[in-house]
């Protein structure tokens, strides 16, 4: 096949700007999918993705476009995950393309993810085709937003296409524009194989299906392929393309997008970003940009009912088959028993894993306070990484603590600048710059500690901007900070899942707030319960749950006995779900309380 007739592209957009709807319209207009089939959003195949309106896992679809003049073109749409947690996967998907449709909602204008996606696509040298979507809506500001987008992308206003993915208006022109503007792929089908993995999925019947973009060379069933990062080699059982379902082909060649099956049992052996080559004829240089997806956020995951430990272990094992970025290892807590320390790409990734564990595997979980990875230089000159507050050494043993910082872009209507800047300042942000997007809206750039945004930052941002601010961030660097470990004690016993690492200046407020919250959650017991927050040996906050004074049933005669017993049985069942620290019983919601600490109040 002539490379001239192939276009590899992706769609990038801020959340809810219509990416999935547009993808469905392309499938329908190219005849890949019937109108009826297009009613569901096809690319987002996981339930969770549809519910949250985001794409978690990238897929690729091949379409054929017959132009009015009779020319035919192969269109490979490579879907990208739409969330900052998955920015590495996004970058690999972009690396597999030559062009990108930049979709902007005509009622909303440019948002934070529009910007970050645009710059990311630019970095990868992609040709940008700007598109304004939702032009059918009454509140659409088509002319204005086209202007904005032209300004951002440096093109002429008339070059910004206008469509309604919902009604289909402008979609034909969009596809023609895509074919005209995006360059065809280049590459030598005779050169040694170099293929970029941009996704891999585990299928229990067929093993790992590896999605690749071939840069050079050719691969066919029977080829012996090798993964450069691991040097593992496998015999290819099938290659093919994806048109809603896998369609086997004799071979895939440079410029093409497709899948490879090679009897691989584990997605960790076919990692996103890795280069596939031929074992007998390896390429000289692997493709650039490969790295191990590194968890940014860690949390302890415990079964609420300790008898579900085995189920949890099996469920994590199954999830990991399909999620190479999920890391976990066993850990135990004095309060919560046996569980796992899990590493996630970000908060959304964490929520998705939690929901899948609970929904698909019927587990009830207790998640401990999320933590970022701290870098410690110890007094004995040893370096150490800590992602579990429990393992944070005493202050005396630490020379320097470094924490991860991110660069955050926030786009908001200018009237909320004050609120948002205050929020960022409260979260120890360092102001970088502020630019006007248009007369009403600004972009504020802050460098923020990641540890500060994993606590409800997004919710707070939405609340101080009445929902108008949009937000995106990227990892920046590690910086030294005055961080301390704050512990929570009940009658002198440490509740390890409630330990947090906080900035020294905030530790007192945090401790007071947490102690107060717990006072409202821990039920009265037969003895008084002292709640203490401490830094090292220093108690910074104290509350007391007074002892129970009265818990008695006055009457218990013949007719009351069964009822009384059943009540006791129910209450005992409820108590079994409580966790115990020392002699103090703690309801499960206590472990969530810390997640709801409002550090601004």
């Amino acid at each position: 096949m002539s490379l001239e007739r192939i276009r590899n592209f992706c769609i990038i957009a801020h959340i809810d700007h219509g990416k999935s709807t547009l993808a469905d319209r392309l499938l329908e207009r190219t005849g890949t999918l019937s109108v009826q089939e297009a009613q569901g959003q096809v690319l987002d195949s996981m339930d969770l993705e549809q519910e949250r309106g985001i794409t978690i896992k990238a897929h690729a679809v091949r379409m054929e476009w017959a132009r009015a003049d009779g020319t035919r073109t192969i269109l490979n749409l490579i879907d990208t995950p739409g969330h900052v947690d998955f920015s590495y996967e996004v970058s690999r998907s972009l690396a597999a393309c030559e062009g990108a449709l930049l979709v902007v909602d005509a009622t909303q204008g440019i948002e934070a993810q529009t910007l970050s996606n645009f710059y990311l696509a630019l970095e990868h040298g992609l040709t940008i085709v700007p598109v304004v979507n939702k032009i059918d809506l009454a509140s659409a500001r088509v002319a204005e937003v086209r202007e904005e987008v032209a300004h951002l992308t440096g093109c002429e206003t008339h070059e910004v296409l206008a469509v309604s993915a919902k009604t289909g208006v402008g979609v034909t022109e969009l596809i023609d524009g895509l074919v005209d503007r995006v360059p065809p792929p280049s590459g030598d089908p005779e050169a040694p194989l170099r293929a970029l993995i941009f996704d891999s999925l585990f299928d229990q019947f067929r093993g790992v299906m590896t999605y690749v973009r071939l840069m050079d060379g050719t691969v066919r069933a029977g080829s012996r392929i090798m993964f450069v990062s691991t040097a593992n080699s496998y015999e290819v059982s099938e290659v093919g393309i994806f048109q809603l379902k896998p369609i086997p082909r004799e071979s895939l060649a440079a410029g093409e997008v497709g899948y490879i099956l090679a009897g691989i049992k584990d997605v960790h052996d076919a990692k996103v970003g890795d280069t596939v080559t031929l074992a007998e004829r390896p390429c000289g240089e692997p493709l650039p940009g490969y790295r191990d997806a590194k968890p940014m956020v860690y949390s302890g995951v415990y079964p609420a009912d300790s008898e579900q430990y085995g189920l949890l272990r099996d469920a994590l094992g199954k999830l990991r088959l399909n999620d190479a970025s999920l890391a976990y290892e066993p850990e135990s807590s004095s309060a919560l028993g046996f569980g796992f320390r899990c590493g996630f790409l970000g908060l959304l990734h964490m929520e998705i894993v939690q929901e899948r564990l609970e929904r698909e595997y019927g587990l009830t979980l207790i998640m401990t306070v999320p933590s970022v990875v701290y870098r410690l230089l110890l007094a004995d000159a040893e370096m150490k990484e800590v992602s579990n507050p429990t393992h944070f050494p005493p202050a005396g043993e630490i020379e320097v603590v470094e924490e991860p910082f991110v660069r955050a872009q926030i786009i908001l209507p200018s009237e909320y600048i004050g609120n948002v800047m205050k929020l960022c300042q409260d979260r120890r942000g360092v102001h970088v710059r502020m630019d006007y997007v248009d007369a009403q809206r600004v972009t504020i750039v802050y460098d923020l500690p990641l540890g500060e945004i994993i606590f409800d930052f997004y919710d707070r941002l939405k609340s101080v901007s009445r929902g108008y601010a949009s937000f995106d961030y990227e990892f920046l660097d590690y910086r030294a900070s005055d961080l301390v470990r704050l512990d929570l004690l009940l009658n002198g016993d440490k509740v390890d899942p409630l330990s947090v690492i906080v900035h020294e200046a905030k530790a007192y407020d945090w401790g007071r707030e947490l102690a107060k919250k717990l006072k409202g959650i821990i039920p009265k017991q037969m003895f008084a319960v002292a709640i203490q927050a401490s830094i090292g040996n220093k108690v910074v906050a104290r509350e007391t749950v007074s002892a129970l004074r009265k818990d008695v049933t006055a009457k218990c005669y013949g007719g009351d006995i069964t009822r009384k017993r059943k009540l006791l049985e129910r209450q005992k069942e409820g108590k079994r779900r409580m966790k115990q620290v020392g002699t103090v019983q703690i309801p499960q919601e206590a472990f969530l309380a810390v997640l709801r600490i409002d550090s601004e109040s």
Partner: protein
Amino acid sequence: MRSSASTPSRRGDGADARGLYVHVPFCARRCNFCDFVTGPEVAGRTETYLDAALAEARAERAELAATPPLETLFLGGGTPSLVAPRLLVRFLARLTEIFPLAAGAEVSLEANPEDLDDARLAAFREAGVNRLSIGLQSLDPAALAALNRGHTPEQGLAALRRAERAGFTNRSVDLLLAIPGETERLFLDGLDRVLGEGVPHLSVYALTVEERSVFGRRARAGRFAEESDERFERLYHATVDRAERAGLAHYEISNFARHGFRARHNLLYWTRASVLAIGVGAVGTAGGARWRNASSIERYVRRAGAPDREWDERTPEARATEAIFLGLRLREGLDLAALREEFGAALLETLAPALARFRALGLLEDSAGRARLTRRGLLLSDAVFRDLTLLPGDLAPVS
């Protein structure tokens, strides 16, 4: 509970029965704290109900043919004192033909003060009643009004005296503790006046807000302020002290009696003896089985005393739980050796850590092979019982 018309065979033949409870569900008015099965009294209704009760008694007698002469008979309600004297005399005469009483049996009747006129008292004596449980509740007029009671404090005290004159030495008085709005002074004065009357038995109940009572509805609507735990604690201790000073021993969480005047019928429940039951909503036990009659008065009468029953299928764990909490409600405490005898040594091993903890907390003490709650333990008894409750699987099968 399982609903069933058939009787589990393990109910046996009645040979272990020791008492009989009869539920008389009619009231002149409904008290605000009550969630019992009651209905308004309508002319003729009581008579047909009592006929149905006799029919149930006969049927029970036929099934439980080995029932020995009974040691106690208790007429509870509702308001049994509302029953017309001639009906009551006739009913008890027939009932005791069906289920004969042992010599010296305790025959109790629950009474409201306003019903206790001389004619009724005489009729009760004639019918064989020898113990009256009188629902005085309070001697504070405002509190009585808040409870929707049908008598004044003066009527209450006068009824006590009339009953004594009519030959009822064995009188018990019910008082409620921590009625909203009643001051501590008023409660303690009332308690002292009752004790001053020389009653040999006293029951003092914390006002419990039952979900299906008027107070329960008010509480749900946010219109009911319960008294503080601290106040309850003070009043409870004061009650125990004053009752004991007046010569009434504290023998169960809520009950006090002079020597020889403990409520024998209720002691059967607390010691887990078998007590038969007649009437709507009544709960009986025999041969290890427990059942509860359905609550509909209309249906009970229509079916001539053959009510639907729910059976409480008690597992060994459930029986052990009951043994523990009923035993601990008594001031003499729980006989640990008997518990081991009945449920096996494993039970005591299971309970040992919790018992040790309660001893260390000063909620439990040992006396003569029994574990008994301390005063403070009594106030926290439900918390103690909760930890000692056994769930299915807690007990290894007893061989």
